[in-house]
């Protein structure tokens, strides 16, 4: 009797369990038929080394994310892959950058855009994203106007009749700047000159401490160049730094011959030259300055030059010269962040070259997009925008002030708070080209020490007039 009871109980339990499992299975939702790959457009100038680096980094990030299972989208109840949509802006001129972005937004139906290169190109093509409410994580374009030219950024200080002003506050809320601005890195550069180079000049050449460092700014005639020049002068003035801008010269963006401009710079007797251009232009200026004009000074390049092509183009003319950056693939291994060790190793293994800075921003941006879409649970563009606004993930390849990637907590336009530094190039016989060491600042938040060596004046350096 007892055995029979036990058997009945077991049967009942099994039956109930079977019913429960069946019910549970009935309740587990299957992937939504709407599920599809997430389309992310990479806005890059494939004509240039920077764009090719962005492309490689994007492909690496997408492959990593997809191989790890893709992106979880709650409303579709499934993980989906990222589909990379190429948005080739060729040379990123204003005229060529709008069409490809329009096609990506209106015809390809991208869910999100990542990239952008020149400030002028991005200021033009972002209008398409603004008007169509497409989240755009801008990883190039260091002009702060890309996020501040709307009402929430007080129009970036633009006068009322300036055509760059955007009145569409909601549209501007879809813009996110994952990049240093001209003000960010100009501050690092002028502070380096004031805090590190000036004392060294004073002690080396017996200059009076009241003598200001003589700085020349040679910049391309576009929004990027003017932005760096204006921000540098503003920071020098506002912080009362011991620097005199003895000459500021602009040149056409198409220029490849800088000899006469450099001659004028040489006549101004500077202690250092701040070169504001992209890879090819900067390398030419540094080479022509030393080789053709005999301007044996300290040249400092902007971070967009952090690219293998820059080191190759400079060759021996890079010795002792400076590069402001926020990502230093030539200053290791070991690197100041373990994430960079992994990234550089994987990138080299995949592409047989070192990565550049433009790609590093891009790589991070894909993970920001993934985090935001998973937090939003949907690819609805407004929800994704809200999720990017509140994203808070650990820093990856770019150092931030808080160690977290967060977009302007407390302000209405969306920027990160990156940490930038100054590298000095040193000749590496084995590599047959220069490598970098970080010379300023000493530390960064959570990284102590950051500095790898003291700054030294280049061989043959000639200071400006006393």
């Amino acid at each position, binding site marked *: 009797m007892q055995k029979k009871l036990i058997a009945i109980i077991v049967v009942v339990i099994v039956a109930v369990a079977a019913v429960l499992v069946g019910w549970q299975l009935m309740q587990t939702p299957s992937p939504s038929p709407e599920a599809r790959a997430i389309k992310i457009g990479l806005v890059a100038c494939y004509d240039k080394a920077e764009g090719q680096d962005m492309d490689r980094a994007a492909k690496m990030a997408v492959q990593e994310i997809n191989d790890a299972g893709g992106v979880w989208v709650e409303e579709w109840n499934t993980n989906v892959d990222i589909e990379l949509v190429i948005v080739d802006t060729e040379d990123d001129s204003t005229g060529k950058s709008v069409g490809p972005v329009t096609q990506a937004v209106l015809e390809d139906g991208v869910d999100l855009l990542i990239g952008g290169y020149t400030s002028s190109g991005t200021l033009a093509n972002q209008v398409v994203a603004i008007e169509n409410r497409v989240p755009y994580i801008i990883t190039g374009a260091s002009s702060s106007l890309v996020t501040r030219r709307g009402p929430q950024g007080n129009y970036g200080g633009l006068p009322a009749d300036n055509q760059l002003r955007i009145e569409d506050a909601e549209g501007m809320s879809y813009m996110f700047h994952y990049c240093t601005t001209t003000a960010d890195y100009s501050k690092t550069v002028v502070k380096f000159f004031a805090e590190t180079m000036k004392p060294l000049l004073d002690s080396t050449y017996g200059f009076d401490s009241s003598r200001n460092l003589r700085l020349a700014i040679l910049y391309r005639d576009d929004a990027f160049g003017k932005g760096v020049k204006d921000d540098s002068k503003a920071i020098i003035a506002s912080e009362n730094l011991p620097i005199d801008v003895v000459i500021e010269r602009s040149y056409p963006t198409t220029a*490849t011959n800088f000899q*006469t*401009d450099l001659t*004028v710079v*040489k*006549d101004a007797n500077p202690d250092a030259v701040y070169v504001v251009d992209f890879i*090819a232009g900067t390398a030419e200026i540094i080479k022509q300055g*030393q080789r053709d*004009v005999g301007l044996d000074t300290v040249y400092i390049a902007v971070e967009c030059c952090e690219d293998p092509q820059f080191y190759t183009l400079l060759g021996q003319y890079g010795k002792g010269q400076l590069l402001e950056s926020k990502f230093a693939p030539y200053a290791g291994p070991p690197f100041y962040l373990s994430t960079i060790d992994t990234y550089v190793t994987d990138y080299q293994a995949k592409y047989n070259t070192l990565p550049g800075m433009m790609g590093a921003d891009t790589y991070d941006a894909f993970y920001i997009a993934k985090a935001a879409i998973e937090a939003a649970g949907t690819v609805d563009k407004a929800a994704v925008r809200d999720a990017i606004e509140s994203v808070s993930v650990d820093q990856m390849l770019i150092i931030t002030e808080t160690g977290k990637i967060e977009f302007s907590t407390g302000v209405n336009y969306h920027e990160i708070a990156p940490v930038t530094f100054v590298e000095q190039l040193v000749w590496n016989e084995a590599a047959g080209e220069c490598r970098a060491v970080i010379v300023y600042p000493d530390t960064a938040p959570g990284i102590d020490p950051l500095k790898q060596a003291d700054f030294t004046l280049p061989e043959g350096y000639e200071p400006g007039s006393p």
Partner: protein
Amino acid sequence: MSGIIETLLWGVANGCIYILLATGLNIIFGVMKLVNFAHGQLLMIGAYVAFTVSTAVGLNAYLSILMAMVAMALVGVALERLTFRRVLGTDKLNEIFVSLGLIYVFENAAVLLWGNKLKQIPNPLQGDGLFLGDVLIGYDRLLAILIVAIILVALFVLLKKTKIGLAMRATSQRSGTSMLMGVNIEKIYIFTFALGAALAGAAGALYGILLPFDPGIGALPTIKAFAIIMLGGLGSIPGAVIGGLLYGIAENTAVYFLGGIWQDAIAFALLIIVLVIKPTGLFGEKGE
């Protein structure tokens, strides 16, 4: 003061490149009455040819100028036979559109063959020079000026002292009469185009020795070469020489005194002033 002297020297060196380009264009226009807007692209291809023989074969940069001239002369023969010959003497618009089409053909071919990154011909004299006081005079500039002078003397001898030069001049002045006098006009046209292309090739090689270049460098020099031959006078070789020097110096002094963004504006302002004062240019010649 040293800065302006160096600037003038660069102006002369750059002007020498313009002289070769404008002289080639002028010869082609003078003899064939052909307007070739793709002439600057011949300069660009010449630079790449010199770059290739310098880097791949290891030929000295200055010897590569000769290779560029030979290669571009052959390209010139092919161009004349395969494209311009077909439209020569028809509506002027046909010649213009053929040359405009060739711009894209050459530029895209260059991107395909050599990529679009800046290149420069390895130059053994690069960075070497002598200081006269504070003035740095680069040996490569001096040699460029010397080479152009030699080419111009050779061209002068060719045009003034040889039979083919005589035939070219005759064709330039009265092509119909020249034909009646037994000049083979077709051969003169081929030779003229090859000579003009060879001069563009030499200009390109010198450009590549002195300055970095990419597939887009041909466009502006073409316009400048046209401006120079208008400045110097259509059909005038001495005019092209003086015009080229004036252009190079004007450009560089404009950059020195006013800034790089004024480089092209000042040079073209000079052209307008000369044409307003002397519409035939400085050394304008009358022809057919």
